[in-house]
């Protein structure tokens, strides 16, 4: 006869196993489209749209599409561009957002709510309306075809300000006061306490920022005229054509571009897990 405790423990173990397996299954379902995309990179352009459709390609040894993408398009250069742009935009964005969030979370000043809404309001401004205006501004500043010209519109992220504000607000004001009395200035408190405490959030938002900027298409297209300054997303579009079927190429391109993303995830996974398990400061 099992004791109540043993039964409870067994039930818990079963739940752990069950939910783990469930999670894995859900995970597989969610990444299925990506798996399909990568497999499709190995398929022939010609037989791509045969019926009935297949998931797996005829053979995984058909690298012609991948070779085509790497040789016929300047993908390596584009990836470098995308990387520089995404990285610099992310860093600057994090700095600007955390500074602003600090201000909203810890200071009381005139116009605080107004300024907050002004900044958060940018989330709702349709970017299509701003494209041409911003092009004119960047053009007047002489920043067309430069990294700075592309990156400058990404420096503001209202949702990051918002999220950091939430995160900083959970740091108790009493801690702030204590540090203040001990002679710790705002900037020091910001650097030594707020940032480390928000590390999981910073990693998450930084990653999301990087990916968002990596994925933008229209603005970099507008602001660059030279092949060397193009980003990776334009590269994918160049592979497909309305009048012809080059789907194998397109999916090969998608596959190639996914690789640095997957590596990035693998690296930052460890950081995030560490950050999450270390927990936040509780006041």
């Amino acid at each position, binding site marked *: 006869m099992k004791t109540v405790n043993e039964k409870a423990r067994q039930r818990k173990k079963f739940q752990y196993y069950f939910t783990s397996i469930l999670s894995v299954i859900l995970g597989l379902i969610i990444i299925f489209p990506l798996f399909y995309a990568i497999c499709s990179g190995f398929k022939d352009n*010609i*037989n791509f*749209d*045969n*019926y009935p459709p297949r998931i797996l390609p005829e053979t995984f040894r058909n690298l012609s599409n991948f070779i085509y993408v790497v040789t*016929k398009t300047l993908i390596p250069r584009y990836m470098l561009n995308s990387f520089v742009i995404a990285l*610099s935009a992310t*860093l*600057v964005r994090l*700095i*600007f957002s955390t*500074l602003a969030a600090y201000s909203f979370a810890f200071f009381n000043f005139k116009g605080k709510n107004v300024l907050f809404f002004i900044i958060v309001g940018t989330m709702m401004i349709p970017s299509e309306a701003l*494209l*041409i205006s911003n*092009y*004119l501004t960047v*053009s*007047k500043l*002489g*920043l*067309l*075809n*430069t*990294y*700075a010209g592309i*990156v*400058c519109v990404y420096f503001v992220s209202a949702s990051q300000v918002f999220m950091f504000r939430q995160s900083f607000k959970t740091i108790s004001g009493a801690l702030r006061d204590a540090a203040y009395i001990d002679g710790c*200035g*705002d*900037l*020091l408190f910001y650097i030594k306490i707020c940032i480390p405490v928000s590390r999981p959030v910073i990693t998450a938002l930084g990653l999301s920022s990087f990916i968002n900027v990596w994925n933008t298409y*229209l603005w970099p*297209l*507008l602001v660059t*005229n*030279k*092949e060397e300054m193009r980003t990776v997303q*334009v590269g994918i*579009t*160049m*592979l*497909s*054509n*309305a*009048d*012809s*079927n*080059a789907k194998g*190429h397109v999916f090969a391109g998608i596959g190639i571009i996914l690789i640095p993303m997957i590596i990035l995830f693998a690296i930052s996974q460890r950081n995030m897990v560490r950050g999450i398990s270390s927990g936040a400061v509780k006041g």
Partner: protein
Amino acid sequence: MKRKGKILSGLLITVLLVTSLTGCKSSSKDTKKGPEDVKVTTENLEQQIKEGGEESLIPSKPTEVIFWHSVSGNNEIILNEIIDAYNAGPGAEKGIKVTAIFQGSYEDFSTKLAAALQAKDIDNIPDIVQLSSKGIFDVKDSDFMYPVQNLIDTDPNGIDTSTFNEASAAYCTYDGKLLGVPFSTSSIMMYYNKDHFREAGLDAENPPKTIAELADAVNKLTVRKGDKIERYGLGTKLRFFILGTWIPSLGNEYAMFNNNNGRTATPTEITMTKDGSLEKVLTEWKAVLDTKGVEYTDSKPNEAFISGYYSIMFASTSSLTNIIQNTVDTETMDLGVAEIVRVDDKGSAATGIGGSALYMFNRGNQDSILGTWDFFKYLATPEVSAKWYAGTGYYPMNTAAFDMPEVVERVEKYPQYKIVDTIIEHSAGFTDYTEPWIPAFSDTDTLIQDEIIKFSDGSQDLKTTIDNCDVGATQKLNDYLSAN
């Protein structure tokens, strides 16, 4: 003081970070020319050519010609081969280098071009642009646009426009002048599955010639299982590209829009809803709809046709190469091609022109213009036209291309290519069948497509459909006319 210092240094770092991102700045800040200046440039140039002769056509120093286009995929390979050959050959002799830059789809390209023209930034405007009907309308009146006709008139040994396919040339003619060169034009045509035809007891060598015959064929070709359609007889979507052939084919007095579909001046009214032509087309079309075997919402039927889901489809001549690769080369289908069906047996047998053309901009730089002109002349040669046509399926600019060995070989191997020649033959003399140049092209096209779909699924009667098209299209025209 320490604290202030920390804050200041923090800000300083930020500022430094931002400015350090200013990589390779575009340095050319020389005198920005305005529209009046560029006009002077071309007037002087034309004068020089008239007086100078052959030598004056060569740029005075090595010049780069910037070419913005929307060609991608396999077609881009062909385009780049043509450009590389030019740069290595005639370009090298004359010190001209053509640089082609992909600028996204026709849509993204239009946004970019609009922004560049608004900025009046001469350095960032190209020399050559490839524009479709969507993009040309807003640009054609720009001060920077330079009609190709001017150079054709000035340079006697330039391009012989009689080698152009008349209809294609009419496509890019504005106000009586040839605005651009018809580099990438196309027509609508019919592709059909001969195997399905034979199965259904139809004559595979005699495809339907009118809408009425089409209705009959669709009825026989559709495979049904109870209420379910397992295979559609026809897959298409009625839109400007198709109406551009059907409306004028009813007779000279019928047109989609006034002012010659925008070739004489900006259209001020939609005429096909008022002169009864749209009504006639839809009345005939009802026969096809009644078979319930037509998928009338698919404007990109290529994939479904290749997979055997549609027996017939309407698609562009520029898809020819691709369809052949996917059906004839793979031996999965006996591919039949035909001209698109006529509305009835009384109208003309001509087919309209759509697609895109190449136009040139005047940036106030004589050498760039000379470089562009030389490149256009190269594109207009039979050899290059043949290469472009054989590789892509777009109409060749120079109709002598049909006699070039490359094309002759292709036609022998794939007799389906003959259809383009046939279309040109039957369209000779009919130059009004052009895709309209109107403001808000895409929106108006979508509006009319949607109304026709509502008519097709039975939720709207004919009169309401025509009225809605009329009201909607007129509003869009008025939006433009009230602001410009």
